[in-house]
C-alpha cells in the first residue's frame, strides 16, 4: 500500500526498499519528527488520531496527484497513530523518480497537502499537565479548503 497508517514505530529502511529501482536516479524522503517544544510550551509526548477510511482515501489521492503533476514513478507515505515520544518519527514520505527534480517536488507536495487535507489529528501533552488538539493554522487560512474537492 502506498499509504499506510501504523501504530508502531516507523521503519524507514523498509519503506525505502519498496521504492528502490535501478531505473530511478533520484530518491527524496521527508521525516516529521516529534519536537520537544511547540509555541513556547515544552511537550512531553504527542498523540495522533486518524479517521482511517478517509485518511487513506485522501492520502492516496494526494500521492496520485504527485505522480501526475511531477512525473515521479514511485511514492509512499506512512503516518503514525497512537502515543509518540519526543524524537520519534510521526510521518515518512518518500518519492523516487528518474531525476532528482521531480523527486524533490513530489516529496514536498505530498507532505504539504497531507498536512491540510488528510483527517489525522495531533494532540500535544505539555509538561505543565495540560493537553490540547493542535489547530491547523493553514486550514484556518484556507477557510477549510472546500476548493480542494471538485468531483
Amino acid at each position, binding site marked *: 500500500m502506498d499509504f499506510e497508517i501504523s501504530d508502531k514505530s516507523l521503519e524507514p529502511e523498509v519503506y525505502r526498499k519498496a521504492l528502490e529501482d535501478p531505473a530511478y536516479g533520484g530518491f527524496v524522503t521527508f521525516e516529521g519528527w516529534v519536537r520537544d517544544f511547540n509555541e513556547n510550551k515544552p511537550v512531553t509526548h504527542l498523540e*495522533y488520531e486518524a*479517521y482511517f477510511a*478517509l485518511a487513506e482515501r485522501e492520502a492516496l489521492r494526494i500521492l496520485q496527484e504527485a505522480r501526475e503533476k511531477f512525473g515521479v514513478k514511485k511514492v509512499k507515505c506512512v503516518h503514525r497513530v497512537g502515543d509518540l515520544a519526543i524524537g520519534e518519527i510521526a510521518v515518512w514520505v518518500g518519492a523516487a523518480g528518474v531525476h532528482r527534480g521531480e523527486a524533490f517536488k513530489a516529496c514536498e507536495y505530498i507532505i504539504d497537502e497531507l*498536512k491540510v487535507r488528510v483527517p*489525522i*489529528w495531533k494532540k500535544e501533552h505539555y509538561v505543565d499537565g495540560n493537553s490540547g488538539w493542535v489547530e491547523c493554522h493553514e486550514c484556518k487560512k484556507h477557510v477549510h*479548503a472546500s476548493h480542494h474537492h471538485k468531483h
Partner: protein
Amino acid sequence: MKKVTIQYFAVLKDMIGKPEEEFETNAAKVSDLFTEICEVYKMEMPQAQLRVAVNDDFCEWDALIHTGDKIVFIPPVSGG
C-alpha cells in the same frame, strides 16, 4: 426519521464524550444535522471551521442525508 451513524474525532470526540453514535434525525442536509448535534450537546463549534464527510468521502455542507449514512464532522486537521 432517518437513522444515521455519526463518528466523532479529536476535539469533537472530547466535547461529546463518545467516538460514535446511532442518531435519528429529520435533518435534510448535513449542515442541519450539525446544527442539531450542537443543540443536543450544547456545543459551540463554528461550522466554518469544520469539514464534513458522508460514507467515507468529503462532501459539501448542503449534501442530503439518507438513512444508513455514516457522517463524520471533521475538526481542523493537524497530521504530519
